[in-house]
């Protein structure tokens, strides 16, 4: 049986992380009321600069920090346009996605040439969790995974706690639900929206860096391959909660892994690769049902003064 192959669980987790992190990021942004479809672009930025800084400094951790900083800066541009200018957030996101795809490819080619990033770029370590990795069957999930998998899982749970159990989290959510009401209570709407968007940049960038220096040590042009958009779907699927997003990402990761594992039995790979998409629709239609966005999601707030 396929499921008795523990590899599928390890694959599930490692495919879910780069979806879950940007999805959680998007959750932060949209919970404060800024629609974020720029995860794809920010992931690319994170992936590229993760490699670039890792190579330049010879230290993958600095690479990760570089990725986070660049991702946050990109998100800052989105935040500025969405918050200060009240621009259409979908347009901004699309602009950023195209910009990021162009910029990273351009820099890849001018800085590293067409044959790709240097092969001696350091990557982040992979770890096994001593003890857990010995558990038969599911131990493989905790064996030799990128350190970012573990960090990512911690971050996701932390995010959930932050958003739903802290004062700041409550305030951020209030801003995305009814900014005017929040404003009348003295809550700084714009500042919290900036915070939400920038956090989305940070998480998306980590998701991108996971691809480039977490499981690999190189960048190829457009290497995110639409994961930012799937993350968007995971965020909605997860009803704009970090744990929900993680769950959605796991379902997606699992069905993708299923598509991989099922290959080689004569069924067209094109058909097999429909599995995650079809399963998502089925799950959505059958189990999850309605997911309602934060009430003020996508609506600019202009204090009318």
């Amino acid at each position, binding site marked *: 049986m396929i499921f008795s192959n523990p590899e599928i669980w390890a694959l599930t987790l490692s495919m879910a992380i780069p979806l879950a992190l940007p999805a959680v990021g998007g959750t932060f942004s949209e919970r404060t009321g800024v629609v974020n479809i720029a995860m794809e672009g920010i992931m690319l930025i994170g992936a590229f600069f993760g490699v670039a800084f890792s190579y330049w400094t010879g230290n993958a951790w600095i690479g990760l920090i570089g990725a986070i900083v660049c991702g946050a800066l990109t998100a800052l541009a989105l935040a500025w346009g969405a918050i200060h200018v009240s621009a259409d957030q979908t*347009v901004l996101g699309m602009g950023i996605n195209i910009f990021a795809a162009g910029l990273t*490819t351009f820099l890849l080619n001018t800085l590293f040439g067409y044959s790709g990033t240097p092969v001696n770029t350091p990557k982040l370590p992979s770890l096994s969790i001593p003890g857990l990795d010995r558990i038969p069957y599911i131990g493989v999930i905790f064996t030799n995974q990128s350190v970012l998998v573990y960090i990512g899982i911690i971050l996701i749970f932390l995010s959930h706690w932050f958003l739903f159990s802290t004062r700041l989290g409550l305030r951020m959510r209030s801003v995305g639900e009814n900014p005017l009401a929040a404003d009348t209570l003295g809550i700084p709407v714009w500042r919290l929206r900036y915070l939400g968007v920038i956090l989305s940049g940070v998480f998306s960038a980590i998701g991108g860096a996971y691809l480039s220096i977490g499981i690999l040590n190189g960048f190829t042009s457009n290497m995110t391959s639409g994961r930012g958009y799937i993350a968007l779907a995971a965020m909605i699927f997860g009803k704009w909660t970090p744990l929900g997003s993680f769950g959605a990402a796991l379902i997606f990761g699992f069905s993708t892994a299923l598509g991989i594992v099922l290959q080689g039995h004569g069924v067209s790979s094109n058909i097999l690769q429909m599995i995650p998409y079809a399963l998502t*629709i089925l799950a*959505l239609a059958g189990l999850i049902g309605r997911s309602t966005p934060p009430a003020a999601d996508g609506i600019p707030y202009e204090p009318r003064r």
Partner: protein
Amino acid sequence: MKALQSILLPVAASLVAVVIGGILVAALGYNPVSVYGSLISGAFGNLGNLGNTLTASLPLIIIGLGIALSFQSGLFNIGADGQYWIGATAAVWVGYHFTSLPGWLHMLFCLAAGMIAGAIWAGIVPGLTKAFVGAHEVITTMMMSYIAILFARYLIEGGPMQEKGYIPQSPLIASNTQFPYFTQGFMRSQLSPISMAIAALAVIVAWFLLYKTTLGFSLRSVGLNPRAAKYAGIRVKLHIVLALALSGLFAGLAGAVQMLGVDHQLLDGFSSNYGYTAIVVALLARNNPLAVVISGLFFGALTTGGQNMQIASNVPASLTNVLTGLIIFFVGCERIIPQVIGWYRRRRSLRAQTPAS
């Protein structure tokens, strides 16, 4: 005044983007004047280039109409790309079957097949699940889009639509279904008067439908306030399905027109991304079908001009994406201009006040 502003602002914003892009390009060691010169001449420089620009904008315009329609109905159809491919696939399939039909009828069949396929693709799964289960259309249309593209791929990669031989492509559609190109004027561009006529018709139909019919009234009501729509006796669920189906219909039509007018067969490339660009086209047009024409042309010009920029100025393709992204971003930020003007005025009036009081 408002109308004038709505034209001037995006133009001014594009200029800002162009200036910023120019600085960037210059910083990278290219000559901005020649880069932009090649962009503009590549888009409009001669009739052939103009033809290419028009050709590139037609699918964007037609899909953009559908997306505008879905937005006006309160729905975000993010999966137009897949609907486009399904429409193209259906049109091609009809195009190389039924060859005994007279050419014009066969053509109509192809177009109808494209439209119906697109409408079904968006209407059935995303439409029904949205209406009855509340499944979010962003997810369903996106997933269906991926499925559409994989399905089309399957069909021509060893599937039933693969042409004999080893190349994954469909047979060519019957020659009498292929739109004729302009014989003069737009020489050597793949611009067809029929494609243009269909696009023009689509614009008029979309506009008329949205603003002049009870259906459009209902759709817009549902989009703006579903509760009030229900109160007004509009069947909200039906209109959700209708809105998505109509949106898919336009995308499917675009696919059919592209196949009949330009590609003539299903080719294994699947990277047009028209469906995504068309979202920006619709949004920048504020979902107004007439304005979609202008923003569609704008993006068509960016595409063809961008290709020419690579040739004439030796700018890598990626840099044209950087510029395109910047332009989209700043056109999105067009409101910064009145804001800055207002801020400046206020400061001036403040300064005028202070000594007085």
